[in-house]
């Protein structure tokens, strides 16, 4: 039974750790399917974490914090669109600028307003999201297998965890089953054909970026108002990049991107588990090397040992309407 509960808790943490990655990967799918590179997921996630924590601290309600985070992330997405869609600036440079700006600004403002070396004050129970216990989780706890799956694995997560996994079929439906999704994909593959058909390429890209901003805000709020009770410096810790790698590995497709996110989540859960554990034959692996595992995995996945990823055709190119 020891082994079984170990597995259950590993799956449980995998679901939790993958959550921000899933939101970010879905956000990335919208931007990149429309032909706009989005390396700024990292910065936007950090911004959302900061705004959600500060907003919820001052307003006393985590939902209002989330709302402000959404507004902040959509604004950043619009800034990215303004630079790279309207002004046809380099999309990667725009993303790098946003990421560096946000790393600096969030920490600088946290330090200026709260004076605690870039931390925001700890949120109390009313100011943060709490774990949701699914109905009957208590009473089903002792039922073998079903109890483990339902009560130990599925129940007791933050609301964002459920929302993240619900967002995947929703994104799939929007991108592949609606006329909006068809246009979205077309804009990323062949913008001039879409333009000929009378659809505004710029408007489509802005809409895609707006959805991208909303989704990434959930990832940040999850970090600072659910799993943690405050914002701290660079708390996104590369998750935006991991999610982007997962999305590329998942070939810009929600289902496969989800699998890649879960793989990252699982590796991370495992690396936390392995810290300080004596392994047979190897001995204890130094903690710094274990922590590098998700990053190494990203590189390995990106190297595409499972086949080459083909990006949307028009990605990274500003659309220039012929006169």
């Amino acid at each position, binding site marked *: 039974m020891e082994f079984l509960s170990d597995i259950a808790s590993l799956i449980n943490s995998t679901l939790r750790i993958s959550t921000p990655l899933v939101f970010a990967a879905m956000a990335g799918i919208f931007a990149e399917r429309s032909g706009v590179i989005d*390396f700024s997921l990292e910065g936007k996630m950090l911004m959302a974490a900061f705004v959600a924590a500060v907003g919820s601290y001052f307003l006393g309600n985590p939902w209002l914090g989330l709302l402000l985070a959404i507004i902040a992330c959509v604004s950043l997405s619009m800034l990215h669109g303004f630079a790279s869609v309207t002004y046809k600036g380099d999309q990667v440079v725009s993303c790098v600028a*946003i990421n560096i700006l946000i790393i600096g600004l969030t920490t600088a403002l946290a*330090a200026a307003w709260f004076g605690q070396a870039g931390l925001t004050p700890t949120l109390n129970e009313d100011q943060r999201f709490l774990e949701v216990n699914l109905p009957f989780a208590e009473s089903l706890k002792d039922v073998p297998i079903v109890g483990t799956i339902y009560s130990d694995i599925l129940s007791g997560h933050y609301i964002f965890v459920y929302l993240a996994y619900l967002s995947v079929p929703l994104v799939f439906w929007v991108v592949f089953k609606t006329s909006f999704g068809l246009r979205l994909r077309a804009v990323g593959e062949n913008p001039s054909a879409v333009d000929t058909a009378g659809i505004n390429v710029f408007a489509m890209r802005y809409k895609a970026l707006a959805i991208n901003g909303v989704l990434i805000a959930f990832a940040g709020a999850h970090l600072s108002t659910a799993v943690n009770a405050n914002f701290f410096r660079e708390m996104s810790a590369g998750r935006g990049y991991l999610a982007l790698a997962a999305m590329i590995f998942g070939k810009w497709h929600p289902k496969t991107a989800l699998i890649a996110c879960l793989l990252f989540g699982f590796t991370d859960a495992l690396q936390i588990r392995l810290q300080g554990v004596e392994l047979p034959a190897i001995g204890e692996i130094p903690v710094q090397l274990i922590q590098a595992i998700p990053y190494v995995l990203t590189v390995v996945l990106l190297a595409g040992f499972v086949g080459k990823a083909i990006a949307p055709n028009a990605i990274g190119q500003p659309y220039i309407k012929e006169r």
Partner: protein
Amino acid sequence: MAPVDKSKVPWWVSNLIVPLVNLTLALLVSGLFIFIAGENPYEAVRLIIYGSFGYIEGFAYTLYYTTNFVFTGLAFAVAFHCRLFNIGGEGQAYIGGLGVFLVAINFSFLPVPIIWLLSIAGAVVFGAAWAFIPAYLQATRGSHVVITTIMFNFIAASLMVFLLVDVIRDTAQMGPHTIALPEEQWFPSFKDFAALFGIKIRYSPLNISFLLAIAASVFVWFLVWKTRWGYEMRAVGHNTQAAIYAGISPYKNIIIAMCISGGLAGLLGVNEILGVHHKIVAGFPAGYGFTGIAVALMGRNHPIGIFPAAFLFGILYQGGSEVTFDMPNITRYMFVAVQGVIILFSGALENLFRPQIESFFVNRLNMKANA
């Protein structure tokens, strides 16, 4: 508005006026941030100027920061000419520093100037090696260097902390750093130089690496604009298909460009290890690698632009530390944000006012010609 004929725009408009307008905009936005943080932007500017020019030690610090930014700025620029975004300068500099230290400590039986040359070579080789894997993956597998180089920054940080804690730590001390190099291997500092002229200063991190930065700038200029390889590399960056048609291998050029870029970033380790710390200290690259991106974009990826841009960031860093000292609400992260704004305005949004400014000057010149 009708587009301007590019050939009629004088060079000083596109290379001087436009960047200055963008920089001004960026500094205005930065002033707003300082205001939001609850401090007076004018006072901050006064402190920045005093801190970076007001006294000799401060000015020496400005030049010391300039040295670091020249290395990382050149590193980003070289890769950028091949249309590669090497944002892994941070990790390459970290590993480059390891190269400097390992060479210096293992070859300490050799005469000093030879140790210096070998250490510089060590920095270049280690930095280049750290850039090689992302380069190889980009060239062969199309793995985007932005993600792989960022990942290599994280991996370098983990690896170096591991080495500094478990393998090469100075066991007599608690902190995660190595033992110091023998004193005769240290680079002569500005303090020694000033003493020759009878000027006494307390301490200065500025050292002869500054000359290495000048040499590196000349080297990059020559390599990129005056050699066949530089031409090939720029051709790949400009139009890969055309380059392939002309018989130029993008594969080879991507790898060489990234390795040279990594090697230049590695030189930061020379300044920090031989010149300043004399040992490896955890986290010594301290964000210089990222600042290099802003420096290169502001300097329009040309050594002649990068040098003044690096100097400007030197002012911002040294003046910035004066500000953080005097203004409790401002931390050094505020200047990270300022870098972001500068990258935004001089990189991504560089076309914001370019057409207006260019047509303004072209029209004025036309009027003069007609009059």
